[in-house]
């Protein structure tokens, strides 16, 4: 596992390992699953169809998964979207999408090379 590559992609490796009780194999496997996770695509679709409720639910799910894997960049942005959506500002939440997309792809690339 290439820690530096992962950390450059926004993954707090130590934080994630602590959460898995130091189980590196489990972390590697779950990061692999994160590559197949559809939450981000669902979030894009929700904003595209301007479904604020679906957007909130998916952003919430993405926040949970990213948080548990310590993909901190994605976790923070998804969390901010949740707050904005709950506060009734769907446009401001949608405006975060390019930034979130960038963080998400960076994390994916890092996982592909780092795991």
């Amino acid at each position, binding site marked *: 596992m290439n820690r530096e590559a992962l950390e450059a992609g926004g993954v707090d490796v130590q934080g994630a390992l602590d*959460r*898995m009780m130091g189980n590196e194999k489990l972390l590697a496997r779950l990061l692999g699953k994160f590559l197949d996770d559809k939450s981000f695509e669902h979030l894009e679709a929700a904003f595209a169809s301007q479904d604020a409720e679906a957007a909130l*639910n998916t952003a*919430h*799910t993405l926040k*949970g*998964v990213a948080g*548990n894997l310590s993909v901190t960049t994605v976790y923070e942005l998804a969390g901010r979207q949740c707050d904005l959506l709950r506060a009734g500002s769907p446009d401001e939440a949608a405006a975060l999408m390019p930034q979130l997309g960038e963080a998400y792809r960076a994390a994916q690339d890092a996982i592909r090379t780092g795991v």
Partner: protein
Amino acid sequence: MDATHENAEHAISNTILIVDDEDINREILANLFEDEFQIEEAENGVVALQKVLTRPQEYCAILLDVVMDQMDGLQMLEHLGKAGIIEHVPVFLITAETSSDVTKEAYERGVMDVIRKPIVPFVVKRRVESVIELFQARRRLSYVVEDQRSELIRRAEQIIELNRGMIESLSTAIEFRDGESGGHVRRIHDITKLMLLRTELGDGLTARQVDDIALASIMHDVGKIAIPDAILGKPGRLTPEEFEVMKTHTIQGERMLSRIPQLRATDVYEYACDIARHHHERWDGGGYPDGLKGDEISIWSQIVSLADVYDALTNKRVYKAAFSREESLRMIQDGECGVFNPLVLECFLRIEPDVNDLYEALQAEGAEA
């Protein structure tokens, strides 16, 4: 865990159910607990609820995500509450939610604790495991209490049965000496109980007192053990001297009973002594041993003396043949066996058809045996 205290019926559940639509989240939680617990997973509330409702005994905790496609965590909580499962299986809400609304609602619906995502392993483990331990200890304790309680009841019932059995055996043994078949004490018991339960004679007595009096009636003739065989088994009429000896079975009976300390400690004792001593007294003072008159004789002794006479008349005895039912009733009403309290007599005549049914039933039973 101490396995020796467990049996199939009282097995302590050891399975944690993890409910989350993201398998990544489920695996992280499973990884924390799989060394000490069995883990089951469900990807939504519908599947989870199905599992819990089918086998509620199996789960020691439920870790529940809030946001799920099919039935979210709060809805599932409501179902668990309605099914009465929440009191027995602690539910933990695991959520990335930071709003206090959801937390408040979850607590209102009976959730044990709310744990934040991303999870902090030692916090989750500590909080979940201590609650599981508490619930398991509570359940184990309730099993122990329940076991002890049923064991105590079983033993108490056994002792009561044994007492009754011994009293009956003793009384029947005495009857055998008398040349009786053994049914006499049983019939006296039943008549006494019928009289107390079915007529106003039992007014003011509790069910327990009625049982005690009926049990005491069984011992009315225990004094006969002190009467010589020659008198007890004499086929004909007793001489006046012999009759004097025979009469002492009342006093002898009371004396015998008073020497059983275990009996003295029970509520049956007073009734048993009274009945043993006074079941040959008569309403007009013409009975023995004390020549008591009217209300000086307890109602239970009056009942037993009438039952005793009726039973003696209608059955064959060593000194006489059995009289018919009609003849027996006529003899009693005409005062040929001494004078009875008119009220007791009236009550007896009222229930006498039932007594007769009882006799026929007992006879059929005896014939079968």
